[in-house]
């Protein structure tokens, strides 16, 4: 594509182009800042997701060991029995989270506060299972955010590059071209006036 825009060489067009250039600079600056913040958010989320993944792996091991211990003490039917006699109150709300305009899925867990005491061993199992669920939800949230922010970064980066390497240079080149054209026109006008003046003077001298 040409590095110049095909425009009519008029002053109005020059003013319009200058206005457009100011707007392009403004958008470029804002998008670049947004990109920087999003990249940082992305890196923070990647670190968080990694930490949570390790945490989930650890909790799974702990809960599994605890479950084996409880089942060996009370029998394998204890979990079904617990589920049948307990009103499940721990709830998770699924919704959206906004990270610099990037919408990601999120979930907030709400713990059942007034838990009645259970058999020895089952209480700590319940606590550990809750921690595991919480960690899984946090991990899901962090990974969702990583994907969504990554996609947005890609999109914004393309726009920033287009503005930086294509739109702004093209506008600047066109403005420079138009200004040169006007200067050239002015010089031509001056030369023409001088020529007319000298012709007139010659005629006056001749008569």
């Amino acid at each position, binding site marked *: 594509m040409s590095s110049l*825009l*095909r*425009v009519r060489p008029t002053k109005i067009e020059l003013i319009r182009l200058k206005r*457009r250039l100011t*707007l*392009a600079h*403004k*958008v470029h*600056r*804002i*998008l670049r*800042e*947004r990109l*920087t*913040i999003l990249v*940082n*958010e992305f890196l*923070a989320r990647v670190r968080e997701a990694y930490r949570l993944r390790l945490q989930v792996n650890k909790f799974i091991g702990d809960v599994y060991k605890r479950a084996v211990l409880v089942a060996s003490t009370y029998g394998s039917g204890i979990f079904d029995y617990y589920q049948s006699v307990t009103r499940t109150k721990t709830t998770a*709300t699924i*919704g*959206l*989270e*906004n*990270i*610099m*305009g990037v*919408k990601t899925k*999120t979930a*907030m867990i*709400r713990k059942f506060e007034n838990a009645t005491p259970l058999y020895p061993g089952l209480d700590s199992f319940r606590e550990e299972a809750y921690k595991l669920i919480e960690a899984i939800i946090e991990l899901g949230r962090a990974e969702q955010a990583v994907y969504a922010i990554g996609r947005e970064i890609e999109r914004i980066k393309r*726009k920033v590059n287009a503005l930086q390497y294509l*739109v702004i240079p093209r506008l600047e080149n066109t403005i420079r071209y138009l200004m040169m054209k006007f200067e050239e026109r002015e010089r031509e006008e001056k030369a023409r006036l001088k020529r007319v003046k000298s012709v007139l003077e010659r005629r006056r001298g001749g008569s």
Partner: protein
Amino acid sequence: MGVDEFYTDLLERALREELRIVNKYIPYRRENLCKLLEMRTPYYVSRDGTISLLDRKELLLLKELLGEEACKLLVPIIIEYKPSLGEATYIVRDEVAAKAIARLLGIRNFKKSLTLYRANLYEVRAKLRTATLIVFMPE
């Protein structure tokens, strides 16, 4: 209309649209912290109509930071970015919000509004992920 004219017109519209959508996620109305803490699921509605959830832990942290003034705080806290302030400079104009953030960061000297730099911003965003919003203010 020629191809180039059409293209430049389109470009101008796209640039203006970009400035508009960059702030589409700002809240339609902000609620005070006490009211949000009373809600079963704290949330706010953005200008584009989406409902964004707020983390209760963050709200409790803000309450702890502000103490008695907690009910005056409007959540989410708006952090403004204005290109004229200089690159990587942000400002919190709300006095109560500025106080909360200053306490979070351990900043003592500030007047009504609080100026933040990029490093501060990252720290704030790490601790108050859902309770803060960055708004772009084009001149």
